[in-house]
């Protein structure tokens, strides 16, 4: 880098100053306060910024108020021009707030703006402000500051370069050594390594034990084998002893048995030997004997039984006839029940028939005369007959209805007539009362009254006469029909009934009338007359009734009797009237005088009375007229009745004919016809039933007869005793007995059959038994022959001998088995020998001895087994031990840990060692480049008086080696020499540190303490250095400037 131009706008006492700097050395010469140092500060400020207000001494505020700052133009190694414009901003503001513009003009014409950082990095090569100040822009004060060398940047550089910062290297070394000691220290107890070593020691002891496992195991194996071997030997001994003991025990055990066995053998030898004796001879012989005797017994018994049976069979022979009749008897017996049923039925039917016939008779009787069964059967009740009967009935009924209506009409007429008569009587009575009252009151009027009375009487008589006529007119029509109606009994009956009704009505009227008259107060005469009329009528009626009741009496005489009675009555009435006449007369006479005085009054009363009399007589008259009209009516009605009677008679005749034709009883009313028809039908039905019964009876009779006949024929066959008639009961009881006999016979036959069969069986059995017996006898003799015996006894003797022998043989065999089972040949022999040779006590003795030996052996064996068990246990233990044994691995782990630690230690210690060695190299052999360069410069500056300078590491001591005096501490040098020494160091540092970017060097009057020679040397050195670097020297001494001019020809001097 080269500074080309300084344009100072305002800086300290400098203002508006421009300074051009050239390559090589430039000397700024000027008096004191000319601004040399200010220029130096200006350059610093331009490059690194104007110092803040905090540092007023370095800030260099312009004294004359011009703008604080300026422009610095520099050129870098590539030829690019850097123009740095820097002005402090406003007085009040902080240092940082300065106006800065950096423009870079490249040689190829490019321009760019750069920042302060770029400036420092690219133009200044990363040198910091302080470094720049200490190394490149140096004033005398700074040169003498030894501490300047210890600024952090520089010292790090020196340290790195091995020059000044040795303290850190020493520290690092010490730290490493401490760390190493922490890891391990000989004979130390607390270090990690010590712990691990202890552990290892312990584990190695364990390891020894662990290693011993294998030999122990081997020893164990060997001991075990030995034990096994001994055991095997012992086992052999035990076996042989054991077998001897067993033999002895056995001998003792079986001794009893053995004795028996021997005895048996001796006995066996004594027995004869019988060969080929039949097997089971005795038993067989005995069996045969028993069988023979039983067989013989059986034969005998069977024969006896057979004879008995034959006898029994011969005893009873059956009835042949009964045998022949048997089946028929059975048949009859089976049919007997039905036969008896039929008989019973026949009897019942006969009874029924009788009943029917009686009933029929009854019907016939009720039907009427002359009818018998044929007629009854012939009379068919046809529809036509029924119709005819109905018609008749209807005709009669119609007649009856008509008659009744007319009778009713007549009755009403009679009642009206009675009413009219009553009204008349009332009228008459009132008249009479008037008359009487008149007569009583008008007695004085007698002269005139007789006439009038006579007149009245006449009128009265006339009235009586008219009444009598009327009375007669009424009775006349009555008698007519009566006489005519006597022809049929039915009509007569009806009429009689009618009369009875009329009579009752009439009687009632007759009884009521007097009362009614009494009430109405009619004059007695008229009362009596009315009564008389009524009584007469009643009598007439009564007579009619009597005539009607008397049937069969000739009805033609009825009318004559009534006329006579009427005449009788007329006569009686006449008497009565005549009796009354005197009375009225008498009365007329007595009342004449009295009636004369009162004649006028009486006449007037009489006139009234007369008028009343007239009105009353009129009324009477009207009543009378009405009564007459009614009577007329009655007469017409009577005629009509008569006509109806005639029609009735005609109908009756036809009816009678009809009846006669049908032979029906006369007088049968048509109403009774349906009943008759019903009877006829009933009769017919009965007839049919009777016929049926008759037929049935015939059949039954035939069947019964056939049965009886059959029975009878049997009876005749059987007995023959009663060929004739046999009573039925006898026959039946015989039949029954016969049947019973037949049943008995039949069972008898069955029994016989059974007996014959048994006999046949028995016969066979007998034969069989006989054969068996023969066989048995044969076999018995054969057996005897076989046994070589003469007879049975001999045979038995021989048999027992054989049996004994067999028993003995078996016993011997059993004992042998019991004694020697499980003891094969040789040992059995041993056993026998033992038994032969020893008696019981010696055997016992020997046995106890053997047992003792065995016990001893067993004990020994147990001991051995125990030993073996222990060994096995130990083996097991060893096994387990080795399974869980990790000592070896643990040891390995500890060793690994130790190895790691050793590695750590080694690295640490090695690093320390390396540092130490390098340090020694540095100290002893190799000074750093800077020091070497500085030494060279120093030598030059001192013109060889001092050879070099040396720096001890860690102590920061700079020493100078004098040509003759050797190493001298820098503090002991003279001031000038000291300054020369520092200059040399600075130059060397500057030279070393900015090799690439050669920063300009600015030296502010550093040579004042140099003598002439050394000044020259220094200037010469500057001159040398200026070949590669721009150097600016400031001085206020003329001689320095002159010397510079002289020694460095290329130097330019600028006077400030």
């Amino acid at each position, binding site marked *: 880098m080269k500074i080309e131009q300084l344009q100072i706008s305002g800086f300290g006492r400098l203002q508006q100053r421009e300074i051009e700097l050239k390559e090589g050395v430039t000397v700024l010469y000027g008096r004191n306060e000319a601004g040399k140092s200010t220029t130096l500060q200006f350059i610093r400020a331009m490059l690194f910024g104007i110092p803040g207000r905090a540092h007023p001494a370095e800030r260099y505020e312009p004294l004359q108020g011009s703008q604080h700052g300026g422009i610095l133009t520099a050129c870098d190694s590539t030829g690019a021009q850097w123009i740095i414009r820097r002005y402090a901003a406003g007085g009040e503001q902080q240092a940082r707030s300065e106006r800065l513009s950096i423009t870079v003009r490249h040689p190829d014409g490019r321009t760019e703006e750069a920042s302060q950082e770029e400036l420092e990095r690219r133009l200044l*090569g990363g040198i910091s402000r302080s470094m720049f100040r200490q190394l490149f822009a140096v004033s005398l004060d700074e040169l003498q500051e030894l501490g300047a060398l210890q600024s952090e940047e520089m010292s*790090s550089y020196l340290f790195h370069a*091995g020059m000044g910062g040795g303290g850190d290297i020493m520290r690092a070394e010490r730290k*490493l050594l401490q760390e190493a000691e922490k890891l391990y220290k000989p004979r130390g107890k607390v270090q990690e390594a010590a712990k691990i070593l202890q552990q290892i020691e312990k584990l190695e002891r364990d390891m020894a034990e662990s290693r011993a496992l294998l030999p122990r*195991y081997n020893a164990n194996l060997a001991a075990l084998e030995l034990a096994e071997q001994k055991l095997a030997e012992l086992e052999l001994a035990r076996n042989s002893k054991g077998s001897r003991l067993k033999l002895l025990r056995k001998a003792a055990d079986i001794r009893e048995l053995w004795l028996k066995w021997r005895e048996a053998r001796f006995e066996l030898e004594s027995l004869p030997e019988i060969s080929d004796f039949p097997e089971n001879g005795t038993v067989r012989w005995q069996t045969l004997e028993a069988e023979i005797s039983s067989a013989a017994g059986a034969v005998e018994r069977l024969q006896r039984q057979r004879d008995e049976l034959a006898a029994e069979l011969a005893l009873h022979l059956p009835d042949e006839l009964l045998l022949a009749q048997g089946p028929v008897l059975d048949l009859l017996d089976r049919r007997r029940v039905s036969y008896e049923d039929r008989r019973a039925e026949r009897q019942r039917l006969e009874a029924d028939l009788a009943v029917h016939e009686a009933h029929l008779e009854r019907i016939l009787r009720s039907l009427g005369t002359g009818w018998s069964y044929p007629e009854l059967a012939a009379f068919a009740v046809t529809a036509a007959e029924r119709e005819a009967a109905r018609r008749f009935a209807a005709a009669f009924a119609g007649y009856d209805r008509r008659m009744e209506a007319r009778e009713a009409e007549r009755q009403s007429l009679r009642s009206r007539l009675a009413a009219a008569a009553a009204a008349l009587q009332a009228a008459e009575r009132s008249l009479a009362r008037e008359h009487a009252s008149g007569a009583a009151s008008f007695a004085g009027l007698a002269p005139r009254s007789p006439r009038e009375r006579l007149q009245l009487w006449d009128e009265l008589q006339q009235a009586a006469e008219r009444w009598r006529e009327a009375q007669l007119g009424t009775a006349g029509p009555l008698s007519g029909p009566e006489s005519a109606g006597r022809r049929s009994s039915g009509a007569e009956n009806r009429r009689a009934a009618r009369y009875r009704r009329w009579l009752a009505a009439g009687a009632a009227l007759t009884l009521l009338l007097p009362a009614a008259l009494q009430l109405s107060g009619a004059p007695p005469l008229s009362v009596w007359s009315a009564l008389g009329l009524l009584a007469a009528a009643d009598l007439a009626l009564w007579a009619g009734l009597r005539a009607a009741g008397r049937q069969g009496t000739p009805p033609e005489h009825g009318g004559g009797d009534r006329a006579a009675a009427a005449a009788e009555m007329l006569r009686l009435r006449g008497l009565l009237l005549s009796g009354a006449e005197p009375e009225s007369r008498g009365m007329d006479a007595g009342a004449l005088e009295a009636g004369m005085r009162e004649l006028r009054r009486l006449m007037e009363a009489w006139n009234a009375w007369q008028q009343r009399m007239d009105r009353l007589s009129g009324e009477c008259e009207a009543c009378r007229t009405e009564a007459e009209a009614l009577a007329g009516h009655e007469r017409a009605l009577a005629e009509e009745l008569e006509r109806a009677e005639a029609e009735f008679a005609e109908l009756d005749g036809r009816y009678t004919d009809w009846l006669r034709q049908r032979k029906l009883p006369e007088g049968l009313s048509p109403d009774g016809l349906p009943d008759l028809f019903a009877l006829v039908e009933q009769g017919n039905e009965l007839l049919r039933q009777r016929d049926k019964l008759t037929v049935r009876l015939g059949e039954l009779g035939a069947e019964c007869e056939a049965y009886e006949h059959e029975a009878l024929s049997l009876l005749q066959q059987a007995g023959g005793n009663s060929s004739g008639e046999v009573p039925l009961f006898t026959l039946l009881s015989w039949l029954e007995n016969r049947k019973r006999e037949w049943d008995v016979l039949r069972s008898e036959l069955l029994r016989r059959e059974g007996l014959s069969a048994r006999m046949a069986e028995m016969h066979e059995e007998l034969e069989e038994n006989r054969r068996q017996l023969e066989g048995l006898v044969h076999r018995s003799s054969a057996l005897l022959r076989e046994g070589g015996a003469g007879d049975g006894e001999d045979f038995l003797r021989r048999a027992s001998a054989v049996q004994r022998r067999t028993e003995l043989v078996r016993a011997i065999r059993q004992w042998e088995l019991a004694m020697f089972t499980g003891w094969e040949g040789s040992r059995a022999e041993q056993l026998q020998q033992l038994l032969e040779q020893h008696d019981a006590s010696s055997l016992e003795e020997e046995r106890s001895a053997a047992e003792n030996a065995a016990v001893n052996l067993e004990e020994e064996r147990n001991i051995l087994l125990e030993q073996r068990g222990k060994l096995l246990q130990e083996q097991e233990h060893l096994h387990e031990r080795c399974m869980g044994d990790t000592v070896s691995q643990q040891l390995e782990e500890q060793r690994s840990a130790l190895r790691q630690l050793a590695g750590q230690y080694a*690295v640490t210690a090695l*690093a320390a060692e*390396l540092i130490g060695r390098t340090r020694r190299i540095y100290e002893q052999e190799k000074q750093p480049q800077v020091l070497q360069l500085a030494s060279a410069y120093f030598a030059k500056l001192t013109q060889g008086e001092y050879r070099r300078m040396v720096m001890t590491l860690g102590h920061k001591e700079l020493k100078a080696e004098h040509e003759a005096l050797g190493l001298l501490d820098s503090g002991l040098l003279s001031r000038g020499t000291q300054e020369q020494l520092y200059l040399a160091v600075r130059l060397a540092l500057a030279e070393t540190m900015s090799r690439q970017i050669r920063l300009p060097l600015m030296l502010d009057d550093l040579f004042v303490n140099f003598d002439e020679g050394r000044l020259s040397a220094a200037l010469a050195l500057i001159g040398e250095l200026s070949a590669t670097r721009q150097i600016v020297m400031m001085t206020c001494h003329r001689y320095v400037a002159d010397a510079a001019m002289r020694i460095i020809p290329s130097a330019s001097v600028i006077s400030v």
Partner: protein
Amino acid sequence: MIPFRFLHAADLHLDSRFVGLAQLPQAVRSYLRESTFAALGRLVGVAVEEKVDFVVISGDVYDVSDASLQGQLRFQEALRELAGQGIQVYLIHGNHDPLDGPRLNMELPAGVTLFGAGEPGQAVACRRSDGTELAVISGISYPTAKVTENTALRFSRKPGSSLFHIALLHGNVDGDLQHETYSPCTRKDLIGRGFDYWALGHIHKRSILHERPAIVYPGNIQGRSVKETGPKGCYIVDVNEEGHTALRFRELDTVRWQVKEIPIDGLADEAEWTNAVERAVEEIRDELPQLMSVVRFRLTGRGNVHRLLSEKGAAADLLTELQRREAVRAGQQRYAGLVWTEGFSVETGLPVDRERLVQEDSFLGELLRLSGRSGQTQDGLEDLLSAALKPLMENRELRRLLTAIDGDDKRDWLRSAEELGITLLSGAEEAARTGSRHQVHGEEAAEDPGMPDTLIGNSADTGSGAEEW
């Protein structure tokens, strides 16, 4: 030739220790310990299931050095089981279980052929079904733990036999012939002996060295440390009429070892890093749901998370947490899908340009150059180590441990020490600084390391934490 089938296994290392695991919970420890036996059980199962005619075991059945009684007992048991199935077993002893080692004094079950030392023994294997002769099997056991002789040269075919020939040999093929103590031989030696199948043991990594004749390392049947990663098992070998072999690998292990790399580049903070690790754990769980997995995470790459790991012990914290979770799972006997984080191998660094740093003329540059120089030669390394680890050598146990450390591990330590130096020294500077400016500065430097200021301001960092196992 009659076709047949056999099972080839080696290096059972029954009941051997699991290396590199520290502070196991009891449940996990028990399960791990049982895993070799489980694998053996599965071997028996596979033999039965595949109906093999016989089984060959090429040495190192157990670690006799551990003299594990259990191992021997369990092996006996397995042999009895195979014998019970009528499967013949042919076996030799290797360097871990030489004939002179402590041995259980028990007879081998019938049907088990153990080849002795001295001359290679010979046996004829027969078909399981009918006893037809199938193959001639030769083998030789280690009399002691060390056999420097090339025993392969002693093998020879049975004269006049046209049967398939199998040789059982425990040793290192194509190793260092001069210094090898485990029956060193070359492939050529083996091919030259005329055998049809070399059933090898000793190398735990499965490999088929040659096709015809087949020269086969089946590897061990159960991984035992993070050096034995991936599926472990045995080979089922089918021999056809022509005598050609076809090999099928069958997994037997119940615990699978893995190394997973987790680059920290681009991980912004601890949470992201924790997520990445947990995700990786779950991936493994999903991948092997039926097995228990033991995993080591290699943290690689450069990033700011490194500082967390190296200074704040974040890795140790997370490890504790992960192990705690899985311990809970193990406590519930849910071993299938259990993922045990064995540890973090922190190989990360701060985001610095190490190459540049090495060339730089600075303290760190000098340090790295010094370290580089020392690491290059064995002596230099030893010199550095003996100086650094001098205190450790005073302890017997540690001495023994350190002498067993191989060069690679030592170089790893050195690399970690370098990173630690970088971290510390740059860290010391940064600790001295204050303010946010440093942060900005640092980031700028990360982006553009070309600036000189970078060299000053952000001296290289990195340095490995102590996560070395």
